[in-house]
């Protein structure tokens, strides 16, 4: 654990982005999590992604619940908005915030306890309503803050640090999200930023609920032999279906790949997702096939990672509700109180 603030001195040749900011400008306070925690790597990946996308920090809102994972928004994007909500209730707050101000970028960070136990219902509704937000679950399979009990995402048969075997079935959040109609579903690993950073970038640009299940080893309670969420286990059983390069519209495409090996997905805003296929016949647009593939590989003991499903032209909650196009704080009295004539017209329409 480090208690000292990170020195302000940075590498003299650190690149700056289109806003004139360096990556260091997207950092937060120094982490108070255990040394080596996977969550800190995810924080670092978020910092990289926001920097590379030239996102203005003050246009991002970070939301979280309770737990080790939900503490992390303090440790990244120190100049963004933040809301640390009640345990498991982050999706409600995100939904409300999104409806009130559709112009901000919503980044929800949760854990396996916060999402798969106390917040399972909340999670489900955010996905099915397609709230435009990034929803990252920092998934370590244990309750780290209470010293390492199994969580709801702990695999059946996995062993705790003290040698106890987990006999309950695991909730697979990726399968659940697919089943609930999420429009962007991915799985990453905190120990592989080359895979994780592009996934977060793509999720930040997605116009709907973008869900990332990120396996994040708990170094203190779940990084031992017998664990299925340890660095070694995940590295040995990681089966990536694709490698994603996130490309902004202005980037020139230079790499040359064999035909059929690369698929380019055009997002709504014109940005491109270039997928280098690792599993040849995997289709990121086929929800049913994706669910079948996941089940299959999971029963073979593999952890499927990568961009698993994406629906680029999705319609989010605002679209479903046909809400007004500007944030509520941008509406003045004439729009909010259009007067008795307007009311009469409305009433007449309902007769």
């Amino acid at each position: 654990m480090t208690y000292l603030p990170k020195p302000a001195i940075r590498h003299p040749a650190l690149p700056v982005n289109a806003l004139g900011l360096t990556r260091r400008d997207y950092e937060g306070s120094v982490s108070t999590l255990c040394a080596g925690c996977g969550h800190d790597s995810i924080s670092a990946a978020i910092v990289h992604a926001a920097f590379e996308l030239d996102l203005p920090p003050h246009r991002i809102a970070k939301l979280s619940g309770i737990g080790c994972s939900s503490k992390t928004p303090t440790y990244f994007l120190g100049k963004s908005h933040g809301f640390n909500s009640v345990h498991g209730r982050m999706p409600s707050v995100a939904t409300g915030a999104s409806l009130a101000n559709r112009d901000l970028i919503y980044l929800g960070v949760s854990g396996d306890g916060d999402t798969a136990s106390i917040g399972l219902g909340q999670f489900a509704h955010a996905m099915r309503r397609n709230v435009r937000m990034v929803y990252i679950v920092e998934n370590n399979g244990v309750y780290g803050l209470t010293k390492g009990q199994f969580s709801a995402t702990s695999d059946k048969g996995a062993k705790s640090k003290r040698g106890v075997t987990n006999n309950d079935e695991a909730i697979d959040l990726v399968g659940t999200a697919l089943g609930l109609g999420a429009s962007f579903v991915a799985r990453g690993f905190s120990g592989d930023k080359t895979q994780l950073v592009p996934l977060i970038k793509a999720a930040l640009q997605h116009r709907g609920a973008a869900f990332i299940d990120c396996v994040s080893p708990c170094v203190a309670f779940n990084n031992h032999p017998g664990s299925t969420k340890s660095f070694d286990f995940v590295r040995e059983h990681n089966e990536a279906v694709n490698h994603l390069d996130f490309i902004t519209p202005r980037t020139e495409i230079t790499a040359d790949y064999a035909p059929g090996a690369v698929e380019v997905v055009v997002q709504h805003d014109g940005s491109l997702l270039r997928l280098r296929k690792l599993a040849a016949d995997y289709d990121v647009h086929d929800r049913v096939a994706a669910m079948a593939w996941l089940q299959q590989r999971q029963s073979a003991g593999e952890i499927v990672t990568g961009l698993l499903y994406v629906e680029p032209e999705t319609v989010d909650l605002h679209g479903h509700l046909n809400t007004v196009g500007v944030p509520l704080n941008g509406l003045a009295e004439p729009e909010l109180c259009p007067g008795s004539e307007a009311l009469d017209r409305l009433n007449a329409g309902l007769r």
Partner: protein
Amino acid sequence: MQPTDIRDPDYFHKVVDCQWACPAHTPVPEYIRLIAAGRYADAYMVNWFSNVFPGILGRTCDRPCEPACRRGRVEEQPVAICRLKRVAADYKGDITGRLPAPAAARNGKRVALVGAGPASLAVARDLATEGYELVLFDAALRGGGMIRSQIPKFRLPEEVIDEEVDYILDLGVTTRFGEEVGSLKALLAEDYDAIFVGSGAPRGRDLDLPGRREAAANIHIGIDWLSSVSFGHIERIGRRVIVLGGGNTAMDCCRSSRRLGGEAVTVVVRSGFDEMKASPWEKEDAMHEDIPILNYLVPKAFEHTDGRLTGMIFEKVAASYVDGRRRLVPTGEPDVHIECDDVLIAVGQENAFPWIERDIGIEFDRWGLPVVDERTMQSTNPRVFFGGDAAFGPKNIIWAVAHGHAAAISIHRFCRGEDVNDRPPPILNLASQKMGIHEWSYDNDISNDRRYRVPLKDKAVALRDIRAEVELGYDEQLAYAEAERCLNCDVQTVFADPLCIECDACVDICPVDCISFTANGDEADLRGRLNAPADNLTQALYVSGALTTGRVMVKDENVCLHCGFCAERCPTGAWDMQRSLIELPQARHACQHA
């Protein structure tokens, strides 16, 4: 790349940029930590053993350490290493009890030292404790050589010289002051086992221009004039003074002139301001005392009427590059005329060895310098050793000290009949600094402060008295704040491959992005794909062996802050902060292993 061998003493020594750049290899961060802890006497002794003249060097050193300082690569200015050294000297109190005692018994060997400047005094310091009978010759009546004769007292007070020269003489050195050695042949005929020549570069260059002879009364050679000022023979100079030359001697000349009645003092240099040999801080000090520095003016003639100097004429030139070589070409503009009452010529120094016969086995090169081995300081006559400016031409005090240490080792081995080329190795001591979970025995909280200026005496007061020291030195609060800017580059990041679980915690926390985990490759390849540009080729890459995933850890030493955050964030203790204390051998170590 092959895994880095951190047992090689040079590897971590190079990471301590200041120590590596110092000719005497003083362990700088070690003494700066002692200053921060208020342990001034301890800090002084670390210096004294390494560079012999902490109080003198803390005011006058050419500071090769400061341009090398890592702090200068991560922010604007390096740590004020030199002036912190002075702090140790200023606040140390009485350290006489800590000095080594004179040797209890003589070893029967006699060594003559010619010239009582810093090189000879360093040899004397190193050999006195080993039991040698040392005989120190100098034409002057007191020890110190150029330190006493050429450095103005407003930069270096007499008491500081007396104190540090006496520490050495009190070790039992026989002085033959006021005695100029006129013949090395005669000295060799006496029964000395070895002779060390540390007689400096005592001859100032002259400028043979029209009018030089006619106006001679008001034209002076810089170092001779400084020496006369130093010994009180000259107390006044004209109102308008021109100083020719761009080195540190020129800066001493112009600033001395300002204190002896020179009101309009001008420095004139042939080439560009930026190419001047003087240290940047000495130029600043001169300009602070209202002395303009005019450049690209080549002296053409001295003007005089009735045998009295009236001014000088200069030709205007510009730099032009032909085949990559710079030449000064006349611009064709009218000559520049500057009126003056006195001219000081400070355009360089030369060695002079009229007292060394050419038939005593000492070879000289075509520049009139003795042929001397750079490692052993031995001349072609095995009994005669050289050091300081006498060896390779004008350098500076800290180089003279380094030569003295090297020569003392050689003389010690030579007098015992051992091979002078067989040198004792440097000693590396690596020790963990971990005290607790996030507690280290050094202060790893990096200060964001910028370099603190050394307070000066009020200009009007300083210019009235040539013996009044112009720099006041840091007080204890300023010294502490400046000491905290040191990055502790000697507390090394030591990586243990088998413990690493590749969790990336160190990569994420590193404030300067110097750690990467990546596939191995050759050095040029690796430098191209680390987390941050690694284009400073003078700084090493620290490479681990293959880790579990087959990757390697690569750390670019270039801008590491030595903050220890990698070690604090490491869950397995694969990173540790270990102090690398590197001790360079001196005469007292020279024969222990033999």
